[in-house]
């Protein structure tokens, strides 16, 4: 009985692996467009924040700060736009129905979708860092860069963005509602939760706002990635960021799975 369960689980995992490989192949096939998508916003905003705003009194290294913020916000938006395609699929072609008749459980399909979003998000947005260095030169220092810490927090952040985007698509169920969620809630949250300022600055100005911000997951993604690139400095402790992101992945993941099943009415 137990060996049968293990055998079935392994075969389901292999099927999920092939589905993921197919997704990877599809987004890699369109790599040039995906890279272009990841270039323009960071290009414009790093230029403005690296050269224009310092001339207006912002710190000289503000461009580097924004370059790292751009990495996170672009990752959020990439995952979000991938989920937009899924929300459209929920209401029209329902091509996900094919996967739901394959020999694997809907839970594995759910996890596969999160990994697909996370991988697509992670791979193409790394270009933001390279772009930041090219534009800002000495204004973007990697002297405190920790590769291991960066890979860990960046991967976990992308998994969170994938989880959150899938949760939102399952909650919305169609493109119109999904867009409304973006305009009214997700978009503003992506920006307000630490895009343009570190958490300690907000906490210093308004301790209440600072504490409220700790209930949002994005602040941990922004701060954690900053620590891995700039060093610990005054940012939120790296391991707290890491732990909180895992907690949010679990919370949104479990609730998202419930919504996903309800939305698709699957077995």
């Amino acid at each position, binding site marked *: 009985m137990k060996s049968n369960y293990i055998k*079935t689980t392994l*075969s*389901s995992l*292999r*099927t999920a692996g*092939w*589905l993921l*490989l*197919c997704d990877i*192949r*599809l987004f890699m*096939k*369109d790599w040039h467009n995906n890279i272009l998508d990841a270039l323009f916003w960071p290009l414009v905003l790093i230029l403005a924040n690296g050269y224009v705003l310092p001339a207006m009194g912002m710190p000289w290294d503000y461009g580097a700060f924004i370059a790292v913020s751009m990495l996170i916000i672009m990752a959020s938006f990439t995952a979000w736009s991938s989920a937009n395609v899924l929300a459209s699929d929920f209401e029209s*072609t*329902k*091509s*996900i*129905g*094919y996967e*739901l*008749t*394959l*020999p*694997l*459980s809907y839970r594995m399909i759910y996890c596969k979708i999160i990994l697909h979003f996370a991988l697509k998000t992670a791979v193409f947005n790394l270009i933001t860092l390279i772009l930041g260095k090219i534009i800002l030169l000495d204004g973007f220092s990697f002297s405190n860069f920790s590769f291991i810490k960066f890979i860990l927090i960046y991967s976990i952040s992308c998994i969170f963005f994938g989880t959150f985007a899938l949760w939102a698509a399952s909650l919305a169920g169609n493109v119109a509602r999904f867009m409304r969620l973006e305009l009214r809630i997700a978009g503003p949250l992506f920006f307000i939760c630490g895009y343009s300022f570190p958490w300690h600055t907000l906490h210093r100005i308004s301790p209440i706002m600072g504490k409220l911000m700790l209930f949002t997951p994005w602040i941990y993604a922004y701060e954690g990635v900053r620590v891995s690139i700039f060093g610990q400095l005054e940012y939120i402790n790296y391991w707290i960021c890491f732990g909180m992101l895992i907690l949010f992945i679990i919370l949104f993941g479990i609730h998202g799975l419930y919504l996903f099943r309800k939305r698709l*009415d*699957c*077995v």
Partner: protein
Amino acid sequence: MNILLQVKNITKKYGDHIALNNITLDLYEGEIITLLGANGAGKTTLSSIIASLHPATSGDVLYKDKSIYKDLINFRKNLGFCPQKPNFADGLTVREHLIFAGHYFLLDMDTINSRVNELMSQFGLNAYADKYPSVLSGGYKQRLLIARSLIHKPSLIILDEPTVALDPHIRRQLWEIIKNLKSYGVTVLLTTHYIDEAEVLSDRVCVLDKGNIQLIDTPANLLSSYNKSKLEDVFLQLMNEGIN
């Protein structure tokens, strides 16, 4: 004939609406059975429950005497499902669709290659091997859907309105393909609202109306018991009578 699949007292409710009402139905090995009914009769709901795409509110589906819900993965390994709307991945060619489908069922590469070549020839898809499904005509999209669902040699294939919105001559080409499936020993569950299709293709016809099975029999028996020359007349009489 041996029973392959049993639908036992399946009810499906959406809120207060009863889409299927206590449906019981047996599917025999190697037959083509058609679910016939008007729009909203419950054909797609029933076929998608049998395909394990959606759960029933109550009741069970047995595959070779075992509840499919107790061993869903193995049931799905024996199932091929063609949905009403083509659901292809953008960016995969016809051949790639079949190759990936083979991988999803964990076939080895040699088997995949031989199955892909076999199915491409069988369904006349060789000329379109490197094309994207989006450029195919409706009939060829359906051929690809059926071919994809057969890659792992399932014992049961469910075709949900495969000829809807197709030109008459394309429909007839697909009929030949569906009839040929029998020669491979596949059990075919076909849903349609085309009565001529049911008459030509089916070993048995199951008439559904408002979530209830009105009757199940062979087309020949239905014609003789209702003393009609066309299945369409039997169907119309049934709908008019609202048989109990």
